[in-house]
């Protein structure tokens, strides 16, 4: 794609990071002792049980949550607040319902002050990239969940972020759509390589997508294991029956098996605690 030059870098460094949520006596530490370096253009999957703080860590990378201790830097620059260079795709429902699909995708360029004809042309290019050139004039509620997530991806990538943060982006989709979206994401990532941090609790998804899987413990979340994935790309669906894949899946299952028999914790979000009234 001519209009989308490859981002300059995208190295993430996290040192002794800890994040606290809640206020006063109800405050608690969600993640602690996170030490992590991610080289540019690596596809990293964060895998962990519900409520372990993987989305919280993603929120801190996006700049929506502050650290209690430690530091997070992108290409040497400390993370302070949200920035289009650190694009984030939420699980669902973050498109502006009052803007047509094309205007949603053109939102970032509009914020940069790019004139309307140019930004709409750019948005059309990115909509074509996610296979939605024909849906430009529709409003988001008219799209299926999978189509909405494609728009989300286009809307974030149009800003040419140095890192792409994804919070269970396919978690609300049915199984078949999810597989299709995984392949689409890999295809896009091949064409527009960026550093990706992909949060999921689906082991197959993490192993299928990533260059590397970080398995997190239950709360307070720490990184239990750092598993490099050497499966060749492009990857096809038959990978999931590969004996090496199955062996790694067994290892992840062991790591994620709850040890104390406690019920799973409620899901956290990249914005902190779950919103009151949200399911």
């Amino acid at each position, binding site marked *: 794609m001519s209009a989308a030059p490859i981002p300059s870098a995208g190295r993430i460094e996290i040192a002794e990071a800890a994040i606290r949520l809640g206020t006063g006596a109800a405050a608690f530490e969600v993640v602690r002792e996170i030490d992590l370096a991610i080289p540019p253009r690596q596809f990293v999957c964060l895998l962990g049980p519900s409520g372990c703080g993987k989305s919280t860590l993603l929120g801190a990378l996006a700049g929506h949550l502050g650290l209690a201790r430690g530091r997070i830097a992108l290409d040497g620059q400390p993370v302070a607040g*949200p920035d289009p260079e650190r694009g984030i795709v939420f699980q669902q429902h973050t498109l502006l319902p*009052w*803007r047509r699909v094309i205007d949603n995708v053109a939102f970032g360029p509009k914020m940069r002050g790019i004139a309307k004809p140019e930004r709409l042309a750019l948005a059309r290019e990115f909509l074509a990239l996610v296979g939605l050139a024909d849906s430009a004039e529709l409003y988001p509620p008219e799209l299926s*969940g999978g189509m909405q997530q494609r728009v989300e991806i286009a*809307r*974030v990538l149009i800003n040419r972020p140095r890192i792409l943060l994804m919070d269970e982006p396919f978690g609300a989709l*049915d199984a078949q759509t999810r597989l299709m979206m995984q392949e689409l994401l890999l295809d896009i990532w091949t064409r527009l390589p960026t550093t990706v941090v992909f949060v999921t609790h689906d082991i197959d998804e993490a192993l299928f997508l990533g260059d590397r899987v970080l398995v997190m413990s239950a709360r307070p979340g720490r990184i239990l294991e750092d598993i490099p994935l050497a499966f060749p790309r492009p990857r096809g669906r038959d990978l999931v029956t590969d004996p090496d894949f199955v062996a790694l899946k067994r290892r992840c299952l062991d790591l994620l098996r709850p040890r104390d028999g406690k019920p799973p914790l409620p899901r956290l979000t990249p*914005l902190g605690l779950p919103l009151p*009234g*949200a399911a």
Partner: protein
Amino acid sequence: MSAGALGAPALAAGPTAPPRRWTIRPRLSLRRLATRAAALGLGLLAWHLATRLKLDFGPVTFRNVPTPAEVARAAWALAQSPKLGAHVGASLARVLTGFLAALAAGIAIGLAIGRSRLAGDLLLPPLEVLRPIPAVAWIPLAILMFPSSEASMVFITFTGALFPILLNTVHGAEAASPRLVASARSLGAGRAAILREVVIPAALPSIVTGAAIGMGTAWFCLVTAEMISGQYGIGYFTWESYTLQNYDAIVVGMLLIGLLGMGSSLAVRGLGRLAMPWTPGGRP
């Protein structure tokens, strides 16, 4: 809107599923329309009989109430008199001025309260004190405060329309989803852009509802104010008809007030739908 997979609404099967179209409210069947028309006819008949027979129940009497035919004659007479335009014009101008001022103030203050804790702490307590005071109770003070009776009537209209608009705007601005705000910030939106692109559109359905209610209360308050301090206007016309013992015209004035109030509320809702093409009712 809810976070989390469990609360997710049922989504269409896949990316290739046909786009979901908004459904239009089904039309009423002919039979139900006929029933409704018959109900109106029955009401008219009851009115006719009660006034024709000059029914007298003791505490309430229909002896001085005009019949539908007399009212129709009076309406016809008013329609042909040049006074109609002057009365309706005066009332419309007052309502529109007061309503537009209330719309501007209500939306501005409402957005400030809805988005800033400090603005809420500063503005809400005095407003909460003023809110329970009915606009009609302002009339004596308004007459003292505004040398021109025209301005005092517009002020009463303003007071009546302000609170429904203000409170609905606050509610709408508070309801803007934190996730929409957060994702807009991650796409490069600053404070002003968040307000313009996220908060105001999110609050717009509430604002339109508040404006339609405010339009209704504006008419209610105007008519009362006109009865007391007017020279022209529908409320003045109604009261003048009473003092001149022109009883047929009283009901004409009442019906006219009802029609104008309903018409302007419908106009507000119609304009609101035009401003919100993304809502179910917003597209043809």
